[in-house]
């Protein structure tokens, strides 16, 4: 009996690893193609013969990405960095403060404010891009960094998650600090913030990824090339005129490199961020 079970368990394990191995292969193929194509010459890439590795390693594609006058990749990278950094910092400060206020500070319209915030949880921002465009264009913010950054600063989900997090924060520490004479403001910055670094890192990494990869809003607002993000620059490359394919792949590699590095070093926080944002209602 025990032997039979052992054998079927071993067969199960072999099946599991075979399935995972196949999945791994399928999931890594796109990355392999991205890197291979980025380092090929365009003629080899579009040749009818298949090459597993570039027959000529074309490292100059990297420099070429930044030389192309039609698609300002350098500028686009700077824009993306600026937008993602400011948006991440802004969301953390605004939602952190608001979440703390909602969780801890009693005041008259607290309930009304809470429902004002959570009502927008139901409506994804992408669905309201036409109304947002109407507003931003009448402010004269089309093709500006302001127009790209500011509307993305007010994330109801992040605020809601911060509120939930602060509700579970041990109240005794804060009360002790208040007895020592600190105001809510002082308690927040000196006691709560230093003890929330992990949670902020989780929300921050997820916000950064979303901001870096955003497409629809930058497409709507980034009308002139100076305000393009990397995603828009890539998309313009991809959907427009005939281009040097190898160089296009190198540009894509450059565009995801910051996130892949982040992934290597901050995976723990990204996973936690996904868990937190994925199941807000759980």
């Amino acid at each position, binding site marked *: 009996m025990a032997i039979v079970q052992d054998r079927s368990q071993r067969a199960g394990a072999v099946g599991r690893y075979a399935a*995972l191995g196949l*999945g*791994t292969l399928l*999931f890594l193929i*796109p990355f392999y*193609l*991205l890197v291979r194509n980025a380092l090929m010459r365009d003629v080899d*890439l579009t040749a009818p013969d*298949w090459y597993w590795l570039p027959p000529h390693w074309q490292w100059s594609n990297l420099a070429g990405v930044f030389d192309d006058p039609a698609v300002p990749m350098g500028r686009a990278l700077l824009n993306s960095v600026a937008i993602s950094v400011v948006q991440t910092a802004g969301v953390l400060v*605004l*939602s952190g*403060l*608001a979440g703390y*206020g909602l969780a801890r*500070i009693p005041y008259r319209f607290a309930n009304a404010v809470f429902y004002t*915030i959570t009502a*927008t949880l139901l409506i*994804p*921002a992408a*669905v*309201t891009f*036409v*109304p*947002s*465009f*109407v*507003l931003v264009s009448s402010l004269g913010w089309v093709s500006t960094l302001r127009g790209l950054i500011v509307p993305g*600063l007010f994330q109801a989900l992040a*605020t809601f998650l911060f509120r939930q997090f602060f509700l579970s924060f041990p109240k005794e520490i804060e009360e002790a600090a208040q007895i020592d004479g600190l105001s*809510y403001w002082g308690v*927040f910055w000196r006691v709560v913030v230093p003890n929330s670094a992990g949670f902020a890192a989780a929300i921050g990494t997820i916000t950064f*990824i979303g901001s870096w*990869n955003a*497409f*629809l809003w930058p497409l*709507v607002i980034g009308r002139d090339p100076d305000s393009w993000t990397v*995603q828009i620059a*890539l*998309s313009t490359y*991809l*959907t*427009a*005129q005939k281009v040097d394919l190898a160089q296009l*792949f190198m540009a*894509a590699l450059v*565009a*995801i490199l910051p*996130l*892949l590095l*982040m*992934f290597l070093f901050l995976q723990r926080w*990204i*996973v936690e961020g*996904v*868990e937190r944002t*994925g*199941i*807000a*209602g*759980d």
Partner: protein
Amino acid sequence: MFVGPFVLGLVVFIYVPIIWSAYLSFFSAYNTVTPTTFVGFGNYLDMVRDPAFRSSLGTFLVFAAFIVPTTFVLSLGTALLVSRTRVMQAFFRSVFFLPVACSYVVAALIWKMSIFSGVRFGLANTILGWLGRDPVPFLSLTHPPWYWLVIVTARLWLQIGFYMILFLAALQRISPTLYEAAAIDGARGWQVFRWITLPQLRPTSTAVILLLLINAFQAFDEFFNILSTFGTYPPYARPPLVYLYYTALGQGQDFGHGSAGAVILTLIIAIVAVVQGRLTGIGRAVD
């Protein structure tokens, strides 16, 4: 001082646009956001009568009917496989999670130009060539609609890892004593999954389905980047947001119809979310 700045921003950048848009939707508003020609429900009637708008909702339904269950099953399956591995668990988890860091634009680029490229050098056509088949023009053919294969595989690759993480976290929360009790009762394999694992995952499963539906409703990036060529988008396979993009921000900047469309879509998504929230109790967690 705490909540104020956030709520102010939320009102200015979410509520004001939605209300303004509801107002615009009753006007004829070409290239203007301060229109004067009141048309009542005209824009709404036009939208409902417009075959292109209805077909965009149809496109969403077809897309959602496939992508929601498929992503659900594959990400749950992956989570189950990964959770039962002892050796290299962290490695497998990272591999499936890695595409989460990728953008839809980059995935679209790889899918369109390298995997499903219609010419010989694409990976899929290279493999078909090894099997002695002719190359398939995956993106320019509408019968059969191979472009769906391109679109859904890209989305699966991008999304499975995200939901796998959610299922993994939920699987870890299931108490081992439940499994022990089931083992003592003689339950094995499928029975354990059917009567222990699946019921315990219910809160996560309902949240995942809601998220998948909302995400499918918002589909834009991969459709836009995979299907449009030389700046033009084919008349088929336009999900709601793509349709709305070309209506409101295309040649004419038709904000009247665009706003009516946005209001309709917002209502649809809000109704879906509320109904699902009522059915599953997601909203109750708020209190």
